[in-house]
């Protein structure tokens, strides 16, 4: 799926990386636990999370994840956006819950990792 399609499905706003919206991601992973995200061997994925802090961006950086959706209407802080921009990431923000976001993306064809 293209990131812009993901944003449309989740009624999400783009808080940084609008130039990346044409890029494709194949898989999605939903988690508020960064320890689990760090165990993934896959990297062409979008992280869907309600954990809104600097370590979510750091985790994505180390795991080579280039796109994150923050759910439950949470907003990324300026410091987070700065770090995301530095790493060429796209950040989306959705008003939907983690469950609803994951369900809608699965239905739209985004693949699970396992």
């Amino acid at each position: 799926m293209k990131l812009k399609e993901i944003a449309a499905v989740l009624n999400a706003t783009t808080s940084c990386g609008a130039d990346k919206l044409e890029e494709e991601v194949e898989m999605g992973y939903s988690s508020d636990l960064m320890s689990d995200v760090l165990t993934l061997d896959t990297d062409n994925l979008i992280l869907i999370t309600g954990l809104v802090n600097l370590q979510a961006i750091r985790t994505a950086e180390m795991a080579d994840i280039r796109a994150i959706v923050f759910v439950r209407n949470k907003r990324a802080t300026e410091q987070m956006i700065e770090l995301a921009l530095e790493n060429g990431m796209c950040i989306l923000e959705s008003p939907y819950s983690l469950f609803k976001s994951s369900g809608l993306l699965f239905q739209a064809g985004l693949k699970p990792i396992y």
Partner: protein
Amino acid sequence: MKLLFSIQGGDFTHAGHPSSEVKKVLKQLDIDGKTIKNIVIALYEAEVNVVAHAWKGTVSVEIDENKITIWVEDEGPGIADIDLAMQAGYSTASTKVRAMGFGAGMGLPNMKKNADELLIESEVDKGTKVKMVNYF
């Protein structure tokens, strides 16, 4: 090439800075992406452990032609039973650390998975020394 960083216990804002810098250097050296990911994930997990558990620590990195050696040393409570700590799911992390998205007892097993060689030495109430080696 040698790099040295310091880490403050409890400082989650700067956790990941050394890993980020090491990642940049390895990219410049044109190291394979998968190898870089293994190295920085192992280092990041080690950094988070220092921030989560210890009072302060250092990260020393030595990059040679065919390998990278990383030492993460801290002054802190130490690990009483390293074998137990290596078990997936075993954790002594605080509620604060868990609220940051860590402390699930996955850090040490994940370091073992990502480093080609991992050596941990620890002394209770003094600190922990971790050495990790990855080959290019």
